[in-house]
């Protein structure tokens, strides 16, 4: 690649930022692996549920990330975007990243819950409060992603998506409470429930906590990478790269005599350090 074609990307990531992400990723993998090891081998089976209880090191963790962390972050970021004082496309892109990762975790929640439900309750699915709200949340997330796919200026798209997130955020408590008035099959809050804590064996409690930490780390890593992808997509797609290239070429660098400088530009040289 012609070094004269290299462009200084305004999106340059400092070496420190890249290393932080890498470390978070490694920490995520390690903590997850540790959790799995503890969950499958070290911790004891439950008195009532037997080995099935080992799913508690996966299911509540992904549920917490999807429902509260991801969705909460998306809603907060959307509000921050809509608020004039803090308006910045950073919040919009953060919300979008949180939603996409949230969808993945939401699907994991539903699947892990279903797999737990089949042997525990006898059914793959039940229409109780928790499950239904989670399913509705998934559909709302998917709607958000669908709306974002509609081509538009970044600001317009950001506004539209932010409003949608706002409507969804308002709706989720209502859905949850309305479905709560149905009979509930899903057990109540585990960690915050005082009745349950005496029956959680020490190592189980610690592993549960670790699972939350591990999955949160996974979420953070995914969020950062997905955010980066969003920035790259917007920047490369908006023609700023072409503009920067043209500027660079106009700086008086001798054009390629064979006249295929434009070809090289279309081939999109990599801005330094963009990854």
């Amino acid at each position, binding site marked *: 690649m012609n070094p004269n074609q290299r462009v200084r990307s305004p999106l340059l990531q400092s070496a420190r930022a890249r290393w932080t992400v890498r470390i978070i990723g490694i920490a995520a993998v390690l903590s997850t692996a540790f959790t799995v090891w503890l969950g499958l081998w070290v911790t004891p089976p439950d008195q009532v549920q037997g080995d099935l209880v080992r799913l508690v090191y996966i299911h509540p963790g992904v549920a917490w990330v999807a429902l509260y962390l991801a969705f909460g972050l998306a809603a907060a970021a959307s509000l921050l975007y*809509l608020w004039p004082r803090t308006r910045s496309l950073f919040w919009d892109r953060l919300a979008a990243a949180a939603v996409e990762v949230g969808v993945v975790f939401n699907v994991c929640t539903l699947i892990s819950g279903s797999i737990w439900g089949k042997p525990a309750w006898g059914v793959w699915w039940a229409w109780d409060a928790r499950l239904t709200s989670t399913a*509705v949340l998934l*559909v*709302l997330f*998917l*709607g958000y992603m*669908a*709306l974002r796919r*509609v081509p538009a200026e970044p600001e*317009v798209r950001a*506004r*539209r998506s932010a*409003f*949608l997130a*706002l*409507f*969804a955020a*308002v*709706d989720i408590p*209502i*859905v949850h*409470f*309305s*479905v709560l*008035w149905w009979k509930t099959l899903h057990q109540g809050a585990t960690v915050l429930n005082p009745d349950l804590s005496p029956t959680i064996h020490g190592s189980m409690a610690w592993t549960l906590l670790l699972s939350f930490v591990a999955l949160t780390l996974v979420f953070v890593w995914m969020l950062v990478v997905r955010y980066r992808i969003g920035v790259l997509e917007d920047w490369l797609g908006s023609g700023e790269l072409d503009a920067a290239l043209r500027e660079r070429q106009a700086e008086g660098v001798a054009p390629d005599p064979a006249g295929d400088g434009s070809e090289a530009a279309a081939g999109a040289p990599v801005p330094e350090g963009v990854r």
Partner: protein
Amino acid sequence: MWRDTLLVAGKDLRIEARSRVALSQVAPFGIVALVLFAFALGPDRALMATGAPGLFWVAVLFCTVQAVQRSVSVESADGARDGLRLSGLDPAGLFLGKTVAVAAQLVVLEALLAVGVVLLYGARIDVPWLIVVSCALGTVGLAATGTLYGALSAGLRVRETLLPFLLLPIVAPVLLAGTRIWQAAMAGGTPADGTQWLRLLVIFDAVYVALGIVVYGPIQETA
């Protein structure tokens, strides 16, 4: 704001009166939906009577989507939306006006569907006032959220497929509450349960109408 509400509601309803789209297209669609449900559930009358509340509300939801699509599309021609924005109409009034218009159409459709449900499914209504109130409150909720989402998706070419997908999950509480209230109001139900759900509908309506009043203006600027 109220003057603008009446202005806009009147405009939309006049358009409807002249074109009669809701009456000639949406209503038959609702009836067709009821008939199809009957085919789906089979000849067991008891089953249909039990399922009547839910089926009624699902049919209402389908009609809502149609009515909202229509409400949005009357303004997509000839830059009418820009015209509305420039006209100096209070956006809250615009929102309320469109909501009122959609709600009015829905009320008529619901009456029609309710008659259909009673006739076709053999549903027996014990407590009529619950039915009426639930329909009224549910309609307000559906119309308000529909208008909001219509505005959000107004300029999009994919609106026809996107709007239902966005709208229906949001109005799930209305479906839930409406069905429960109807079940309470039917022969063999307990009316006391119904009043609990009425509270939910009131909250839903209050939240989304308030939200619409505040947010409709800013949304218009993105369409």
